[in-house]
């Protein structure tokens, strides 16, 4: 099992459909300050159900929608799809891949899709539980947050272990 693909459109600094494909092993993402690397981390967190705007550096969830740039008009919606390769059948489901999509628009419409079909956040969380990703998403460490694990409350650390149980 691994993260095979991320498709973004209208999300943060990705106004047009952008597809990133990854293989297993160690993939390293590099580039100058402010070019959009951590926006990719945020896209993964957001698509997999992140509920707090602060965790993706916004004040409200609408902040993820591309707000415009030189010669680029702002978009009215954002969508991110994360495709997890399940060819080895590790996750409970019989699909060879698990696709989770999240979208939001400025008029307030928002929701998820699991393998193409509309679903609720609870369905996404259940699908993730089968993959071992779990609700706490401790496998995604955002920029500047690594030391927070050490200064976090003992209860929070327990949650991480419970999730692995």
């Amino acid at each position, binding site marked *: *099992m691994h993260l095979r693909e991320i498709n973004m459109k209208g999300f943060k600094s990705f106004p047009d459909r952008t*597809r990133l494909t*990854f293989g297993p*092993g160690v993939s390293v*993402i590099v580039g*100058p300050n402010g070019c959009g690397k951590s926006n990719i981390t945020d896209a993964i967190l957001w698509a997999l159900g992140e509920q707090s705007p602060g965790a993706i550096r916004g004040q409200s969830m609408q902040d993820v929608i591309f707000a415009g740039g*030189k010669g680029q008009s702002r978009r009215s919606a954002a969508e991110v799809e994360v495709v997890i390769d399940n060819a080895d059948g590790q996750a409970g489901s019989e699909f060879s891949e698990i696709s989770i999509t999240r979208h939001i628009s400025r008029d307030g419409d928002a929701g998820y899709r699991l393998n193409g079909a509309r679903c609720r956040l609870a369905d996404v969380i259940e699908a993730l539980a089968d993959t*071992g990703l779990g609700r706490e998403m401790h496998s995604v460490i955002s920029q500047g947050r690594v030391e927070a694990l050490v200064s976090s*409350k003992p209860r929070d650390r327990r949650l991480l272990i419970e999730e*692995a149980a």
Partner: protein
Amino acid sequence: ISELFERTFEATSRNFEEMISELFPGGKGRLRRIESDQSSKPSVSEASAGESDPEPEDGVREDSDEESARVDDGGVEIEVTPAGKSMRRLSLLSGGEKSMVALAFVFAVMIARPCPFYVLDEVEAALDDLNLDRFLRVVKRFADRSQFLIVTHQKRTMDAADALYGVSMAEDGVTKVVSYRPSQGDTGDRVPEHDEA
């Protein structure tokens, strides 16, 4: 439920001790369960004075049901003593030491129950070259169990990549993924396309 947690905690705790001895050569670390009324306070591993080995803080262990119930839904305390130092509050550790302790914890949980992928965004920014090499050695060792996506500015981390993705932004505020360099051993069938579909 607590049976399962108990087993996972024991496994994670053993892993953590191993990870600390690898990431802090000569150092010691352990995970300790604390009672629920203590676990909402930020981590305050008590300073243990003097140069001797830190006194295990168990004190008198009452095995009453009440005690074990409180510990059951309590939190987890992290204790680490780098080589040659006396154990103190985690907060007194240096920036680089705190990053290494956090990574040891993540790896300890990972060994107990690997996730399909890990996204690490500049987690090694505070590390010196020696600690960076230790971190990368662990990542490479686990790369056959889990996938790693690592955002970095460190050259040594780039050298450790199986695949390298170059990202840039033009004057228009739009991110483009400009290049992809599979490592030399790559069979080529993993070449991703980055199309602006």
